[in-house]
């Protein structure tokens, strides 16, 4: 019975991890694509990555940085206002800021596309098809995560430290920058890293808001495999995967994955 249980656990872990492993494995194999098991070893697919895919990777990173900066810069102050302010409408603002999570990203992408097309008639400016267009639309679904993470980092905040600093004569601004902000940093960092990962993951929004020179790597992979699947796609995908894993380790270090996903074990 116990054996059956561990077998089941092992099989499910296999199912979870196998596709990730297969991407990496296929990227260094010499055997034809899509056969199992991949055979041989070569790095030629990494050299064969076309320039347009490398450009797309660069675009992805740029979009990721802009989206993350945008979401963090507006999200963190909002989280502070929600957590600390005592004003009417606070609950509504909280709900409003988290509401994009209720809408599929595909719908956000389509809505943004149509919105900017119509707005362009009025303001003679359409960010669609540019890096900024993608980042603006991606901000819609990353801001809620930044706010959530900042609120989580705020949850067991010991405000007596601030009071002590104030009592010892520090000015409120000094207290904010020397006490409050450093204590909130783990929550802010993890929110930013998660926002970056979400941006790297996104296809629907980048598909509708991007295009031309503003094509991100996931979109490039997504559209290219609809025609054919070349081995170098596995190679560039592996590069992206390694980047994501590095960011994930950073997230684990800065905040702890268990705490970030709210599964920390309470002592019984």
């Amino acid at each position, binding site marked *: 019975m*116990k054996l059956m*249980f561990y077998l089941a656990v092992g099989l*499910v872990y296999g199912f*979870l*991890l*196998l*596709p*990730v492993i*297969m*991407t990496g494995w*296929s990227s260094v194999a010499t055997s034809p694509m*899509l*056969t*199992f098991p991949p055979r041989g070893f070569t790095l030629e697919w990494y050299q064969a990555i076309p320039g347009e895919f490398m450009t797309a990777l660069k675009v992805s990173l740029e979009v990721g940085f802009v989206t993350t900066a945008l979401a963090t810069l*507006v999200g963190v102050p*909002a989280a*502070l206002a929600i957590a600390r*302010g*005592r*004003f009417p*409408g606070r609950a509504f603002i909280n709900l409003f*800021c988290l509401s*994009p999570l*209720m*809408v*599929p*990203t595909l719908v*956000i992408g*389509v*809505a*943004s596309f*149509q*919105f*900017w097309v*119509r707005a362009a008639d009025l303001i003679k400016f359409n960010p669609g098809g540019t890096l900024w267009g993608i980042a*603006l*639309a991606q901000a*819609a679904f990353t801001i809620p995560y930044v706010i959530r993470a900042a609120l989580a980092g705020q949850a067991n905040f010991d405000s007596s430290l601030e*009071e002590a600093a*104030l009592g010892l004569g520090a000015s409120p601004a000094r207290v904010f920058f020397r006490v409050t902000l450093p204590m909130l940093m783990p929550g802010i960092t993890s929110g930013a890293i998660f926002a970056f990962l979400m941006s790297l*993951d996104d*296809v*629907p929004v980048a598909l*509708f808001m991007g295009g031309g020179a503003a094509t991100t790597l996931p979109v490039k*992979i*997504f559209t290219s*495999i*609809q025609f054919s*699947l070349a081995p170098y*796609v*596995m190679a560039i995908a*592996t590069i*992206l*995967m390694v980047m*994501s*894993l590095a960011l994930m380790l950073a*997230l684990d270090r800065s905040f702890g994955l*268990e705490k970030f996903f709210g599964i920390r074990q*309470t002592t*019984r």
Partner: protein
Amino acid sequence: MNCNHEDTANSACCSLFQSKSDISWRASRWWPLAAVPAVALLLVVFALPFLLLAETSLHVDQGLAQVSADFTASNYLTFVTDPFYLQILSRTVAMGLIVGLGCAILAYPVAYFVARSDGALRACAIFFVLAPLLISLVIRNLGMFPILGESGLINTALKWLGLANEPLHLMNNLVGVEIGLIHALLPLMVLSLVVAIQSIDYEVELAAANLGAPPLRVFFRVVFPLSRPGLISGSVLVFTLATSAYTTPVMLGGNRVLVMSTFLAKEMLNALNYAFAATCAVMLVITSVLLGALVLRNSERYGAA
């Protein structure tokens, strides 16, 4: 008495500090200003586009991405009366249910394993559940190709075991999409169940076992019923995300599986029918989100927790 005195003194002292901090931090009238940038940005990049989309769905397409001036509900009437669209809708809901069920079955062993382990093993177990979740979906779908393909892992294994003469078609169809979505959303179901299972006192399981219940019976009579809130919230989350997913249905469906999301994208990109695409988008939100919210609400009302 003395003790009481001290308490009062303490609380007085506390409230003194509290009021001071209240003045400088909490009661500040300036806090709402900190929320202004986020609210303003979300208005422009989310709320207005979404409202405009809902408004567009009330017009009729006039070809070449143009819509009529007058308001009408005819798009919605078409959607709910035409069997073609109803079939897409029912296919989407069925897919969401299958993916939810698949995730639940696969998630229980792992969730139990994580919830009942500790230390380095637990950290490791959690890392390997979350690692796929944080890796770009495009990459995970790519990794499915060598597994589900005609000469992929599953078909090779089946042939080797002599279980199948002809390769199974596991890709470029609805089955492939469902397998891909189960893989994509499984970590979320595991997370939800871990929270529920680790809140069950292990002593309860021990008591049941001591009273002679075999392990499977302990699971179905103790762990399963007590973890139901986690199962329900996890299933709703998975159903919502499965029915609204776009990337996986295209990549593993070979661009020919018609569900709400893929049909909506086709209306936008190929048919250039903005009005009907907007209608589909609103219907998608209603199906995926409102259905889920309804289940959650009812389960709370009827005390599933």
